[in-house]
């Protein structure tokens, strides 16, 4: 098509300005992140003067050293890793299991089950009744508060179900003839062929678990169990940056400031997600399509 006809002047101008506009969007997207990065790698005291835009003025990794030496920050990081890994494994398994059951043709009560679930998409109890439930279940100040209330999502179930319905029946029939029961079919046939949708949901839920700070804010008074995002929230929103410096052991150079540690923590916290998502993106575009159109 393109080579058949030469571009007209108008076409060329359009392509030029369009491409330029797209570059602007990319710049506007990346620059704020770049700005944090170069400032985090600048020496703390010097960074206070501001004016570091493109490259560190005085390159230093001291802020990062301080972050990795701070027991408080590392504990919070460990909690985040634990709740993300455990949360994703259990959420994917549990939601897929229920979705497999719901997707079975001829399931007695199937229509009612779907109705029960659909209602949850539009109605909820809100903050206070949910808090009271969590309290009554003795999940306050309990690590499981990150896992159990996030175990299941009807929205994710729809994505799973749409995918499961496209698995050819023959596959399940064959397993049945080989003597597998429904658990066997689910574990040995359905899950292994569903890797694309598993990757999608794992990414969605992983991002949720990694980024969620609110559960830590309202359900957790025990500081040893707060995730890194909640830790950062307390620093960012409540401007208690001095706490951060106080948490740093004295051995580090005095050039580290609360601001530079905050920036370094932000970089360390964000890095894992930025590293993971390019590998999973081919899956989630499809997953999002299924979810949004049928949702």
């Amino acid at each position: 098509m393109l080579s058949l006809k030469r571009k007209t002047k108008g076409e060329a101008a359009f392509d030029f300005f369009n491409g330029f506009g797209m570059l602007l969007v990319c710049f506007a997207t990346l620059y704020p992140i770049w700005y944090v990065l170069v400032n985090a790698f600048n020496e703390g005291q010097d960074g206070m003067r501001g004016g570091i835009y493109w490259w560190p003025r005085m390159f230093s990794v001291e802020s990062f050293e301080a972050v990795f030496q701070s027991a408080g920050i590392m504990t919070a990081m460990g909690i985040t890793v634990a709740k993300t890994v455990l949360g994703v494994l259990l959420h994917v398994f549990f939601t897929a299991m229920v979705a497999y059951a719901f997707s079975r043709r001829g399931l007695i009560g199937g229509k009612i089950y779907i109705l029960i679930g659909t209602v949850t998409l539009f109605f909820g109890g809100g903050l206070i009744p949910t808090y009271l439930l969590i309290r009554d279940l003795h999940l306050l100040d309990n690590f499981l508060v990150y896992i159990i209330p996030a175990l299941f999502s009807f929205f994710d179930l729809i994505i799973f179900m749409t995918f499961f319905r496209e698995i050819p029946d023959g596959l399940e029939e064959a397993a049945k003839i080989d003597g597998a029961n429904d658990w066997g079919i689910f574990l040995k046939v359905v899950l292994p062929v569903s890797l694309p949708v598993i990757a999608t949901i794992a990414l969605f839920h992983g991002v949720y678990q990694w980024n969620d700070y609110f559960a830590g804010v309202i359900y957790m008074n025990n500081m040893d169990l707060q995730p890194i995002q909640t830790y950062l929230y307390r620093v960012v929103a409540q401007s208690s940056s001095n706490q951060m410096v106080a948490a740093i052991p004295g051995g580090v150079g005095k050039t580290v400031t609360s601001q530079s540690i905050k920036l370094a923590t932000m970089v360390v916290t964000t890095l894992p997600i930025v590293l993971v998502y390019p590998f999973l993106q081919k899956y989630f575009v499809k997953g999002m399509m299924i979810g949004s159109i049928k949702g």
Partner: protein
Amino acid sequence: MRHEAQSAAALAASTRAAKRSRWFRKLYGQRHVQVMALLGILWMIIFNYVPMYGIIIAFKEFNIVKPISAAPWVGWSHFQEFFQDESFVNVMRNTLGISLIKLAIGFPLPIIFALFLNEVRSVLFKRSVQTISYLPHFLSWVILGGILTTWLSDVGIVNHVLLALNVIKEPISYLAEPDYFWGIIITSDIWKELGWSAIIYLAAISSVSPEMYEAATIDGAGRFQKMWYVTLPSIKATISILFILAVSGVLNSNFDQILVLRNALNESASNVIDMFVYQTGMQQGRYSYATAVGLFKSVIALILLLIANRVTKKINNTSLF
């Protein structure tokens, strides 16, 4: 005659029994799947339906040490109190103002972005732009709060640049000024979600038949005309569905973000319903009152959902239900 009737009844009874035993056999056959399904139902009953039941404390005077059933009924008094609360007008103005502006600007921008990104010819460039544009979706609001406080502080880059350009004489503490708060909230939300929201439109656009574009080219349509007369009408259904979903979720979309960016100084612009519920409920322990306010918000959200559904149904025959 009687004999016949009896045998007919007996026959009916036996077929009913046979049917029932077949039903039980079927149920037994799917016992494993039923267990899986019921585990999900059990979870939903506990974590979705029990809190819905808990909403009744909005009509009671709930005491934290006693069960809900023991609380005395108080009717609509919590709602009346909220309507007479001195911050009611301010809270409603902030909630609806931020939500509606977000909808008016934040909803069409990803569509426009998708339309123009679709016109990029180089596949590699297109894919790179897309990958970069949805990166911010994966950052948390806490991280964004950190970025924004850094940018908008007295020695931050925004003040630096504006001072250098002589636009302002003295540095401004943007997050301490209520006047700037809505702008910050709306801009940062768009920055975070523009690329992510565009994915779905790009996917819809990619399924538009190339013949339509060829036909339009033959008719002499330019690039803008093709966007307007071919691409846009082709993704109308997707736009409608996403619009309904956006409207129904719009009142909920602010809280994570506002909790990070609000402070005592910008309170007059940042106090939205969710914030009010959080403060009266979680911080002051007025559970019944806060639940009533939260319920009031849910009702508004439901009304908005129904209106949006009705409007899109009328305009182009697409609706959620």
